[in-house]
């Protein structure tokens, strides 16, 4: 039996022919990285290869220097296997990885979404024989509204809170979601304040995208300054003394999980905005169909159900276990890494590996 081009082992998605790993979760020699989220980009590899727009992100988050950047669609060969990065539309710097050997093409999507968010390079369909796809929101109950509509709701919510003299605290993952929200917050309403984790991450990305001005919350920031304004904070800040000092405030959370009433209540936020950097049900089905793939390997998310559905539609579909978490990090704030604290990152990584 011929070895498959990509296989799953205890370190990650492995290409034996090239001795290369895609988004490995244990330290390896050669790591191709789709994007900067902590479940995909981990610490301790010898060599990192990623898209050029993700280099700064990896350097910032992992504190590493051994990163090589490639351009979109730039093909590079390792032991006769051709690799290239293609836009995934998930967050700034996110890519799908195309792998080709002797005419056989595989695509690993990493995390992706089909809607053009105007912040990162939009998702592109990459034709392939086999697709390894995430399916974080691979259930028909997930149906995203257009971004403009959700952002309009968020700005309106901010204005209403302002009218009551309250501070709006909006939670979003510090890499990706926070910048997407920031891009469309309406600065004419008031000042946009940030938590340090978000401020530092955004600063790294400002030379790639034009963002509204932000003000970092420091020890000198007075409660009165915040009244009527908005604060962007990572989910892990929810319930912290840092937030409690902002009273009176109203909390909102921006995540795909906010589609569930149970999740909204579990997070105990005042308002949930359903907005995700992953595909919804239709987005997954349409993009898989567009790639022309016959074989589908579903990873993190509702992979069992999703692949069963695909099999019934005639695909050769199966699941694979990975240590990717999708948007779960947003629901379990203790998983989220604090960009301020490198030690915590290392500790967290050694705990999960």
């Amino acid at each position, binding site marked *: 039996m011929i070895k498959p081009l990509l296989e799953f082992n205890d370190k990650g998605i492995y290409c034996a022919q090239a001795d290369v790993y895609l988004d490995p979760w244990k330290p390896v020699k050669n790591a191709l990285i789709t994007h900067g989220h902590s479940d995909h980009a981990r610490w301790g590899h010898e060599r990192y290869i990623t898209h050029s727009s993700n280099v700064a992100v990896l350097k910032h988050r992992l504190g590493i220097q051994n990163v090589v950047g490639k351009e979109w669609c730039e093909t590079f060969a390792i032991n006769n296997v051709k690799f290239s990065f293609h836009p995934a539309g998930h967050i700034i710097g996110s890519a799908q990885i195309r792998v080709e050997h002797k005419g056989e093409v595989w695509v690993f999507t990493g995390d992706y979404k089909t809607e053009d968010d105007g912040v990162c390079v939009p998702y592109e369909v990459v034709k392939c024989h086999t697709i390894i796809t995430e399916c974080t929101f691979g259930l*028909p*109950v997930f149906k995203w509204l257009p971004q403009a509509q959700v952002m309009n709701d968020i700005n309106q919510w901010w204005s209403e809170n302002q009218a009551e003299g309250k501070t709006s605290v909006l939670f979003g993952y510090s890499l990706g979601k926070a910048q997407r929200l920031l891009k469309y917050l309406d600065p004419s309403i008031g000042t946009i304040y940030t938590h340090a984790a978000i401020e530092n991450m955004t600063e790294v990305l400002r030379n790639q995208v034009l963002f509204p001005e932000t003000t970092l919350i420091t020890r000198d920031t007075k409660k009165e300054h915040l009244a009527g304004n908005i604060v962007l904070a990572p989910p892990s800040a929810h319930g912290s003394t840092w937030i409690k000092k902002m009273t009176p405030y109203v909390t909102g959370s921006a995540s795909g999980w906010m589609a569930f*009433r149970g999740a909204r*209540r579990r997070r105990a936020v005042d308002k949930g905005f359903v907005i995700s950097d992953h595909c919804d049900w239709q987005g997954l089905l349409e993009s898989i169909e567009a790639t022309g793939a016959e074989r589908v390997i579903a990873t993190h998310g509702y992979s069992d159900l999703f692949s069963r*559905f695909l099999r019934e539609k005639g695909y050769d579909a199966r699941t694979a276990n990975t240590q990717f978490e999708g948007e779960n990090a947003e629901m379990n704030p203790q998983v989220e890494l604090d960009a301020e604290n490198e030690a915590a990152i290392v500790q967290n990584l050694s705990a999960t590996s």
Partner: protein
Amino acid sequence: MKLFAELIRILDSTNKTNAKVDALAQYFRHAPPQDKVWAIALLSHRRPSRPVNTTLLRLWANELANIPLWLFEESYHIVGDLAETIGLMIPTTTQNSHKSLTTFLTEISALKQKSDDEKKHYLQENWLVLNYYERFVFTKLITGGFRIGVSQKLMTRALAKAENLDEDVLAYKLMGNWNPATISFKELILDEKSSDFSSKPYPFYLAYALETTVHELGNPADWSAEHKWDGIRSQTIIREGTIFVWSRGEELVTEQYPEFQQLIGIIPDGTVLDAEILPFQNNEIGSFNDLQTRLGRKTVTAALLKKVPVVLKVYDILEWNYSDIREKTYQDRRTILEQLFEEIKGKNLPIRLSERISFSTWEALGEERNRSRQMRSEGLMLKKNNSPYLVGRKKGDWWKWKINPLSIDAVLTYAMRGHGRRSNLFTDYTFALWQNNPDGSRELVTFAKAFSGLTDAEFRKVDDFIKKNTLERFGPVRSVVPELVFEIGFEGVALSKRHKSGIATRFPRILRWRMDKKIEEANSIDDLKSMII
């Protein structure tokens, strides 16, 4: 309907009591009167009976969702709420519905008599013209409870605020047997005299569990004590030659206890008693398990009446000679009550007095509390001698002084996803104990389910363990690698034919996660049996 859906959305999205009261009061100020009656009915569990079963609901909703039925079912298990699943799964169209809440509920009430085809047409037509949240609320009107953390008390407080009425008077008006389809807002809330006064119960006074040591209650001479009976709390009303029995959930359950009919004519008209319904045979209190066989039945057979006879164990009197005596002190009310029992003494009636325990020191009372299990009680009730009968759960005058629960170390073997705020998390657990086989081997046998007692952080950890250690899936249920040990607390144990282990526990809940224990150290079924009195 739009106004009501918005109300539910606000109630559902905040956990701040004041915000809920404000939203409700706002609704009561703006909604049309008949919609208000329906809103009050819905928020006090007076919905029309379900016109369509959930199997058909799923089937018809799935037709519009246009996916395989198994995927609909799986999605439902993950979402954890049928109405929410239907709300999410059916596509939203550009159409709009401006029907009032009253119109919807009148239609839903009438639906029961219709054919399946008509029901299906009605539901599908409405699902498609409502937006996501309205569709969810509309489906909830059919399937049941909103689980939005609005108690009747909270709703009453908001209504009192909006209508400028006394909260206790309003609570009284809202109790009893009224029908939202036939009563107007004016009749229900605004009119001074109500037409069906005779069945109306008083709001129950509920006690909190004692938080401090009993010594901090002060002088024992100021207090009375009774055993805390483990049955069904009830209010029994005898007025104008008729008896009404109300449960604590404000359900009229008179028909379930035909033996109480013989009290008419002996207990004088114009009497209201606060009492516990207890299984009682050969002068002994039975187990709650026995009583359970008599609950929720439309008709009670003669055989069952003979097998599980019940009595009223009376501890308080709220009305005497048609006058409301709740303002009198506990001491005075008890004097009236004990006098009444003096008069009916010797007549073989299904009614007993809950005796007051005489004690002079807290230590002596503590001794009596230790006898609770032998007395078939859950502990003691402490009542201040000079206290009036209050409305709802109030601190200070009445306290529950319960005995510590029994406990046993058990192994987690099955798990199911929770509902409401725990949907998508595995929080409903089944626990097992060791059973010794004749051949010397032993196996784990399930004995109880529990889903409360852990912190959110612990639930997340256990959820994570379950997802990584699933053995098999049976629909929403997963069997789990037996590895985690929990201390399970419960109020009592009794033999049971319905349970695999042969034993039923009362109020099982998780006391703590025994991370220090291996499954070999968990207890056995025999250990549990030894706790039966």
